C-alpha cells in the first residue's frame, strides 16, 4: 500500500480516536502542556518586560536574549532537563517550553513599551498621572499589538517544541510521530506529522487573528513588517 493509503487507513481507523492513545486525548495533552508553559512564561516575562520598558533600561539584554536563544538547541535542552532532578515526562517539557517561550514574549513586550512616543508619555505625566497610571493606561494599551505578536510567536514555538517532548516521555501529539517511527509504521508517522502540522497552523492562524484585533488599522502594516527583530525561532 502507498504511504497515502496507509495514512488514510490510519486516520480513518476509529480505534485511533479513542482512549489514552487516541488522537483527542493526545491533543488535549498537547494543549495542556503548551497552555501551561505559555501561561507560566507570560507570568515571568510580561511584568519584567513592562517594568524594563517603563524605566527604559535593560534594552540590550531584552533584545539579545531573543537572539541568543536561537543558538540553543531545543532538543538538547529538553533532553538535558530530563536527566536533571526535574526528571522527565511532562514536567521537564513544561520547564523547557517555558524557558523557550520567555525570550519572544520579553523582547516584544519590552520593545512595545519602550517605543511608546515620548511626547505621549510626557503628556500623560503632565495630566498628573503617576508612573503606575502611565504604565497601565498609556503604555500598556499602546504596547498591546507587540505583546500579542510576542504571544503568537511564543505559542507557535511552544506547540512545535511540545512535539519533541514525546522523546523524553511526555505526552501530546508528538507521541504519534515518535511511536510511528518506533514501530516503523509510515501510516502512523505521516498521520502524526499531518495532525501536528495542522494543529500548529491552527494556533498560528487563531493568534494572528487575535494580533490583528488588538492592532489598530493604521499600525497593521508596521506590525506585520516590523517583526524582523523579533522573529521567532524556527519550529523546533
Amino acid at each position: 500500500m502507498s504511504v497515502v493509503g496507509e495514512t488514510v487507513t490510519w486516520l480513518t481507523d476509529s480505534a485511533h480516536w479513542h482512549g489514552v492513545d487516541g488522537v483527542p486525548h493526545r491533543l488535549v495533552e498537547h494543549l495542556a502542556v503548551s497552555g501551561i508553559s505559555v501561561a507560566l512564561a507570560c507570568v515571568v516575562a510580561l511584568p519584567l518586560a513592562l517594568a524594563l520598558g517603563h524605566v527604559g533600561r535593560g534594552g540590550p539584554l531584552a533584545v539579545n536574549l531573543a537572539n541568543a536563544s536561537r543558538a540553543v538547541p531545543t532538543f538538547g535542552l529538553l533532553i538535558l532537563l530530563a536527566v536533571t532532578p526535574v526528571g522527565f515526562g511532562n514536567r521537564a517539557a513544561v520547564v523547557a517550553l517555558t524557558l523557550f517561550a520567555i525570550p519572544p514574549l520579553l523582547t516584544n513586550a519590552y520593545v512595545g513599551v519602550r517605543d511608546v512616543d515620548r511626547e505621549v508619555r510626557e503628556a500623560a505625566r503632565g495630566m498628573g498621572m503617576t508612573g503606575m497610571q502611565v504604565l497601565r493606561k498609556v503604555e500598556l494599551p499602546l504596547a498591546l499589538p507587540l505583546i500579542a505578536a510576542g504571544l503568537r510567536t511564543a505559542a507557535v514555538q511552544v506547540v512545535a517544541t511540545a512535539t519533541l517532548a514525546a522523546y523524553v516521555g511526555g505526552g501530546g501529539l508528538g507521541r504519534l510521530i515518535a511511536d510511528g517511527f518506533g514501530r516503523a509504521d509510515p501510516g502512523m508517522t505521516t498521520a502524526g506529522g499531518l495532525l501536528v502540522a495542522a494543529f500548529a497552523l491552527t494556533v498560528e492562524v487563531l493568534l494572528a487573528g487575535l494580533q490583528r484585533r488588538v492592532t489598530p488599522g493604521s499600525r497593521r502594516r508596521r506590525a506585520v513588517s516590523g517583526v524582523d527583530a523579533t522573529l521567532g525561532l524556527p519550529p523546533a
Partner: protein
Amino acid sequence: MPLPLAVDEAPNPWLSWTYLHDNSDAILAATRQHVTLTAISVGLGLLLALPLALLARRSGRLETLVVGAAGVIYTIPSLALFAVLAPLTGLTEKTVVIGLTAYTLLVLVRNVLAGLQGVPEEVVEAARGMGLGPTRLLLRVQLPLALPAILAGVRVATVSTVALVTVGAVVSNGGLGQLIFEGFNNNFYRAEILTATLLCVLLAAVADALLLALEWALTPWTRR
C-alpha cells in the same frame, strides 16, 4: 513523580575529561557532520531564495504568495515535517537536508527582498541611464547593495539551522544531535548530552562570528 534515574546509582558527571578524551574521534566526526548539514542546507536555501525573491518582487500578489508559503512551512514543527517527509525520502540525510533547507526560506527570502527593495531608486535610475541591462543591473548594482541585508538573513538562518540540525537525529543524522540522542538512550550519559549541547551553542557562535567577519570584508562601503 519523576521516574528514578539509573544515573543516581553510578557516578555520572556533567562534564568528564575521560569522555572527551576517549571519544574525541566520535565527537569530531559528529561536529563535522553538523557543519556539513548546516552548510548544505543554508547554501541550498540561499540558492532557492534568490530566484524566489526575484519572483516575489514582480508584484505584491506574488510577494504575498511566496512569503506566505515560506511562512506556512516555517510554522510546521520540524518533527512533523520530518515525519511527513521520511516515508517519501526515507530515513536518510536527504530528509534532514530538505527539511532544514525549507526552514531557511522564510528568513532568506524576506531579507533578500528587503535588501533589493532598499536599493535607492536614484541609483537604479543612474545605472539604467549608464546603459546597464536588467541582468547587469541586478548583478552589479542591486545585489551588491542588498548584500548587508542578505548576509544578515544568512546569519539568522545559519544560527537557527545549527540548533535545528539536532532534531535530525530522530530520522537519520543530526550531527551533534546524534550524541545527544545516544547519550539519552545510553543510560542518560550526562557528559555526552551536555558536551554535545554546548558544542552546538559554540558552533552557532563561531558561525555567527565568521559570517559577521565575511560581511565586514564584503561590504567595505558600509564602514567609513
